[in-house]
């Protein structure tokens, strides 16, 4: 791996407690998982769709709360990304398990998601600190992932949306892999 570190811009360090309102909102997303399983198990398509919608809205809300309470932190961003992965990964497994979504694309999505998570870990290691890799394309495909689960629960063009997702996610993971593993890390601690 080529590693050309770029010196960090000098700014006063501000410590934000991980016990803050934004992280509480992020953590509350895990509360959506048990009712989601209940809804899918009981065949309640509309309830399952509404629960995943609430989970997605909480994802948007935590950023807003972080802004309002001025408690943004690298840990919070990382926690948000991990929560996205766990919540959406779990829900994808559930819909595939109950036959509401095709298994092959779900498996491909989970493998790509795990590969991306591993690369984020390597990126944080290269940076020498807790840092969340910022990717505009990944932000968009993560929103699509939330929708994917909604398409499965709502029975909306499930095959089309799941198979369309896989090549786009592959392109984005490959693009981000170069930046995370090869390109210089801004603000790396030498």
């Amino acid at each position, binding site marked *: 791996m080529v590693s050309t570190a770029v010196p960090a811009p000098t700014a006063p360090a501000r410590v934000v407690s991980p016990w803050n309102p934004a992280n509480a909102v992020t953590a509350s997303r895990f509360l959506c998982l048990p009712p989601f399983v209940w809804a899918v198990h009981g065949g309640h*398509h*509309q309830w399952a*769709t509404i629960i995943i*919608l609430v989970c997605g809205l909480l994802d948007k809300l935590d950023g807003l709360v972080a802004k309002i309470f001025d408690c943004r932190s690298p840990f919070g961003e990382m926690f948000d990304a991990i929560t996205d992965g766990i919540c959406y990964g779990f829900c994808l497994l559930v819909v595939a398990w109950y036959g509401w979504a095709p298994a092959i694309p779900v498996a491909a999505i989970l493998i790509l998601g795990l590969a991306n998570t591993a690369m984020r870990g390597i990126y944080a290691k290269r940076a020498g600190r807790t840092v969340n890799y*910022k*990717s*505009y*394309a*990944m*932000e*968009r*495909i993560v*929103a*699509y992932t939330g*929708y994917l689960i*909604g*398409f499965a629960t*709502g029975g*909306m*063009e499930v095959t*089309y*949306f799941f198979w*369309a997702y896989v090549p*786009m996610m592959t*392109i*984005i993971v490959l*693009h981000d892999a170069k*930046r995370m593993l090869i*390109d210089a890390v801004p603000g790396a601690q030498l």
Partner: protein
Amino acid sequence: MTATQFKWFLTILTGGLAGVWVIYDLWNLSRLRGKDTSDPIVADKRFGYYMGILIGVVGVVGVLRFHGVV
């Protein structure tokens, strides 16, 4: 919610956001015109906006398929 209401709920939620997203990322992309493409942040934004447009188009086409238009 009846089946028809639910279908339209999904349509508005998906088609509405996807359509707005295409326009939003087209606008974002137009704002990047003339910026230094060798800057990795500009390059990442550009790539992200292109993918956003593509995702939006996939969403709109999906909604049209859902209603049997395409």
